[in-house]
C-alpha cells in the first residue's frame, strides 16, 4: 500500500514537473509580435531617458518589490562554485557581458560596475539577492535585466551567484 502511494506521489510530481518545464505555448512557435508585448513596467521605461515619471515612481517600486520571490529553502546563499558557472555561462547569467570581476576573465564588459572585491564591501547578501532577482526594484528601468522576474535564473541559481559574489573563497574576492 505504502509503495503504491509513494509511486503515485512520484508520478504526480513527475507530471507536475513536466508541466512546469513546458509552457502552455509549447509546440507552437512564438512570434515576434507576442514577444514584443510589454508589461506595465516595461512600458513605463520605454522613453529616451529610460526614467520613470515622478508620479509613478512609488507604484513602480512597490510593484517591482512584490515580484521578488525566495528559494523554497529560504537560503539565499548558495554554492559559489555553481554560481561561478552561472555567472560566466553566456547562455545562463552571462554576467561577464556587462561586469568584470575575476581578473582571469579577460572578456568582460564595462556597462555595469566592476565587481572585483564585491564581497569585501560588506553588503547585505539579501540586498545582492534582491538586486539580481529584480534590479528594477532598486534602479528603475536599469539596463540590468530582471533575472528572477523573467525566470532566466531560478531563485536557487540566484542564491548561488550571491555566494559567488560574497564568498571569501570566490575569485571575485581573492
Amino acid at each position: 500500500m505504502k509503495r503504491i502511494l509513494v509511486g503515485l506521489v512520484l508520478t504526480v510530481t513527475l507530471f507536475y514537473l513536466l508541466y512546469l518545464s513546458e509552457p502552455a505555448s509549447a509546440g507552437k512557435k512564438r512570434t515576434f509580435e507576442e514577444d514584443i508585448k510589454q508589461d506595465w513596467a516595461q512600458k513605463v521605461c520605454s522613453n529616451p531617458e529610460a526614467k520613470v515619471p515622478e508620479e509613478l515612481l512609488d507604484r513602480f517600486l512597490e510593484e517591482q518589490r512584490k515580484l521578488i520571490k525566495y528559494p523554497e529553502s529560504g537560503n539565499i546563499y548558495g554554492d559559489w562554485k555553481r554560481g561561478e558557472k552561472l555567472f560566466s555561462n553566456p547562455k545562463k547569467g552571462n554576467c561577464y557581458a556587462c561586469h568584470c570581476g575575476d581578473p582571469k576573465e579577460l572578456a568582460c564588459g564595462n556597462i555595469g560596475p566592476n565587481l572585483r572585491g564585491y564581497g569585501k564591501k560588506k553588503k547585505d547578501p539579501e540586498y545582492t539577492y534582491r538586486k539580481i532577482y529584480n534590479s528594477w526594484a532598486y534602479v528603475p528601468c536599469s539596463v540590468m535585466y530582471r533575472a528572477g522576474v523573467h525566470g532566466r535564473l531560478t531563485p536557487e541559481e540566484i542564491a548561488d551567484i550571491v555566494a559567488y559574489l560574497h564568498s571569501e573563497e570566490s575569485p571575485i574576492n581573492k
Partner: protein
Amino acid sequence: MSIKYFLLFMLTSGILAFSFAGDRLDPAEEVKKQKKLLLEMMGILPGDVIVEEGKEIFHKEGPNGKSCASCHGKDGKGEKLPLVGAYATMPKYYKDIDMVADLDLRVKSCMEKYTGYDPEELKGKKGRKIIVPLATYVASLSNGMKFNVQPRHPKEKEMYKKGEELWYARVGKMDFSCAMCHDKYGGYRIRLQTLAEPKKSKVMRYWPAYRYSKDKMWTMEDRIRGCYKQIRVTKPPFYHWAHVALQMYMAVNSNGGVVEVPGFVR
C-alpha cells in the same frame, strides 16, 4: 548555421583558456587590432566579390526575359528609373506595391513583379542567396552620395513613428531596447565588443556590411534579426514591417552620412 555552433564551442572553451600571468595588455584595445590587421592584409575584401555577384544577378534575365537592367539601365544608370542614389533615400513609399519598403523588400518585390521570379524561389534562406548580393550591389550604386530620407507620405510617417517606438521599447526577457544598448550605453563594451552607436555613426550609410566574424554579407534586416535574437526576442521574419520601421527611424538619423557600401564589421 553551423558557424554559430562552431563559434559557441570555441567561445565557451575560450573562457577556460585564459591565463595571463604578467602581461598587462588592455584587452579592449588588443581586440581592435584584429580588425585592423584584417583590413591591412586585404587587398580585396570578400564583400567586394559579393557586390560583383550582385552585379551579375542585376544584369541576368529573369524567368520572363527581363533583368533589373531592362528597367533601370546598364549598371542602374538608365535614363528612366536610375538606381544611382536610390538607396540613400530608402526606406520609401512605393506606389506599385502600396507599401513602404526597405532595401531587401524593394529588391524582392521588384524581382517578383517585374522579372518574373517565382516567389517560392525567393523565400527564406534560399532567397537570401539572391537578394542579399543584389541588395548590396544596388546599395553600392549610391556610394559617395549623402543619405537623405524625409518621411512625407502618410505611410512613411507612420513607419517612422513605429520605428521610433520600437527603438525605445523595452521588451522581452532581458528588458532591453535598441536605445539602451545603442544610445545610452553606446561606446561601452559588452564583453570585448564595443557597442555600436548607429545614430552617431549614421549607420545606414555602411550597411549592407561584411561581417568578418561570420564570413557573411549581412543586410540591415539580418542585423536587426541578430539583435533581437541576442536579446532573446523571437526574430521578426525577413521583410517584416518591423525591419522597415526601424530602418526608417535609423535612416532619418543617418541623414547627411555618405554611403559607403559594403561596410566591414565584426
